[in-house]
């Protein structure tokens, strides 16, 4: 029975294909695919593949941004200099702290917001928009605004003073500067991940909740046994995107603290940019970038491995 209903469409499709073939001037689908790949391919090769390839070469030379002398090969000098540099280790430590804190903090906050705006009530779109607003604002603008908020006599300390708390100089104190940057970064990006969580939430069929409530499951049980398993793919996506964004922390640092005070907010990317442009040491900056590339690659591979493992177990 299945064969009789299945066959006619196939022949019809074949017939259609043969009919259209002469019109497409002998171009195979392969050529078309290549053509479609071309714009993205050219951009990727020019702005991604070639620079990465150059980094691998430059990292082993003494190339400079401005110099009448040609660059020459200096072996592993850049790397031995880098690993003996305190600022590099501090930058690496700050980058790791930033990533380790912001990944759970920001994803949990985004999930909380997503659950809040997932209810069916009047005006919920207004709140969705409000939470999403910082995402569409440029990071440069957000950084400038928070620079004012964080001033010793800024808005945040004024509010704290109302409760009798003497707020610190948030960005001027080495023990609070990184924390201040973390909070501000999470505030800026949380709306984006809220929307991703929201889309995940809305793919969970309503029948599952109906069935769960018929079985007498409490809201907490519903979340743990229906919502959370249903958000698994979303969770992996969010985990990976936040991690990568966290490692590339630069804009906020460049505008708000320039790595200070006392290197407490210096990051690997900030150090690479400062070394490469302000200090004109292209080769050394390439070595920093190369080390950074290896670290990010290792973390991504580890995350892939961990998430894939659990999937197979399920």
């Amino acid at each position: 029975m299945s064969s009789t209903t299945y066959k006619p469409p196939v022949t019809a499709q074949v017939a259609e294909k043969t009919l259209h073939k002469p019109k497409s001037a002998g171009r195979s689908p392969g050529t078309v695919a290549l053509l479609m790949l071309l714009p993205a391919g050219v951009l990727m090769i020019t702005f991604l593949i070639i620079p990465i390839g150059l980094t691998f070469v430059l990292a082993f030379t003494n190339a400079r941004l401005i110099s009448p002398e040609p660059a020459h090969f200096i072996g592993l000098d850049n790397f031995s200099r880098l690993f003996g540099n305190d600022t590099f280790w501090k930058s690496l430590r700050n980058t790791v702290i930033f990533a380790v804190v912001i990944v759970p903090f920001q994803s949990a906050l985004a999930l909380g917001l997503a659950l809040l705006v997932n209810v069916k009530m009047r005006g919920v779109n207004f709140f969705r928009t409000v939470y999403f607003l910082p995402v569409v604002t440029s990071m440069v603008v957000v950084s400038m605004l928070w620079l004012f908020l964080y001033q010793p006599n800024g808005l945040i300390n004024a509010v704290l003073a109302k409760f009798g708390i003497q707020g610190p100089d948030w960005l001027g104190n080495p023990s609070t500067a990184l924390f201040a940057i973390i909070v501000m970064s999470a505030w800026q990006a949380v709306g984006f991940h809220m929307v991703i969580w929201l889309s995940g939430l809305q793919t969970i069929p309503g029948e599952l909740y109906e069935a769960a409530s018929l079985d007498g499951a409490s809201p907490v049980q519903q979340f743990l046994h229906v919502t959370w398993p249903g958000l698994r793919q979303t969770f992996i996506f969010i985990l990976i995107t936040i991690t990568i964004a966290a490692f590339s922390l630069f804009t906020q640092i460049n505008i708000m603290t320039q790595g200070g005070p006392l290197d407490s907010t210096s990051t690997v990317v900030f150090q690479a940019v400062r070394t490469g442009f302000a200090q004109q040491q292209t080769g050394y900056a390439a070595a920093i970038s190369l080390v950074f590339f290896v670290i990010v690659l290792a973390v991504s591979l580890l995350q892939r491995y961990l998430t894939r493992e659990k999937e197979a177990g399920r």
Partner: protein
Amino acid sequence: MISRTIKRLAATILVAATPLALAACAKGGSSASSDSAGGGTLTMWTHNAGNKNELASIQKIVTDFNGSQTKYKVDVQAFPQDSYNQSVVAAAAAKKLPCILDIDGPNVPNWAWAGYLAPLEGMDDTLSKFLPSTVGKYQDKIYSYGYYDVALTIVSRKSVLKKYGVRIPTIEQPWTAEEFDAALKKIRDSGDFDYPLDIATSFTGEWWPYAYSPMLQSFGGDLINRTDYKSAQGVLNGPEALNWATWFRSLVTEKYVPLKSGADPAKDFMNGKSAMLYNGTWTAVDTRKKFGDDVVFLPPADFGKGPKIGGGSWQWGISQNCSDAAGAMEYMKFAAQDKYVAGVAEATTNIPTTDAAAAQVKGYEPGGENDVFREFTKTFAVVRPETPGYPFIATEFTKTAQDILNGADPQKALDQAVKNIDANQESNNYFE
């Protein structure tokens, strides 16, 4: 069906994009052009697209030059200051530098060493009348000259100083370190001001070496040993430098200056938050408007080696790949006339570099209200080290000074800066 549509679409996009790409290439290629056999167009780049008055004063020189002869035509292209240096570096890499360009003073040795700039020949006589800090030199050759300089000063009010019994210092008799500290202490203890002094720590970039390395030099230290420009050992981490660092940090611990100034320290001064303001002479116009005759512009304190202030502002030079160097030189000679020095200095409210020009600019004539700024520059100005390694030294000094102000161990911070600066000089084979 679908594939055909997409193919057509792709083709259309390609056809549409090609002229754009070609146009972009053509535009990049035409920046410095000049006809052979002498004469033609000389391209000129300037950083002051954002400064209407300065640009207009430069434009006037160019118009006069173009009208004075028929052989050459100078074509001005103005850039915003923030992206100017990158534009020059990129143009140099592509061998597309303009014939005439302006340069921030401390960058002159770096660009001369890199082969961007050609020496200015046959102008020694003219330029001997210029303030030394406005002439860019590298290895005994002149590469640039500027129309003006800026002086650093301590701005305060006579009434305030009188109230706290602080002597008003003069060029001949500046404050000693003890007098300065005593004045700061007295004003702080009165509690009348948030801070007795504001040194504008909120400014970024070149401000830090420009404003704070003169203090180090007044203590007897320096950014690098200027006999051979090979090492900073002993000058940036010696006992004098350590004294500077300890004093610099004490400004914050004694609550003499805010660790981080407000976004506009001049405004804070005018609103009475600080009693004194360490700043460039560009604040003169606004502070005079606010306080009238009460405002005074004082020389910085003498920490042992006399008061020091930074010297060297934007200057003009010619590039090495100019196809008509003779024409560019002709312009440079034409533009060095006193009336043009006066014109640009007046437009920017800065210090005119020659005596003759100063006589023509209101306020800078001998005895004029701004004459004191010229005296500061003449007497106290120290140019930043004339080595191609300067841009690196500037970043290292900035970071070190910031760390010291924030409480880093002074000796350790200075030693690290010396280590980095020496390594950079050495890795460039001392720029020989």
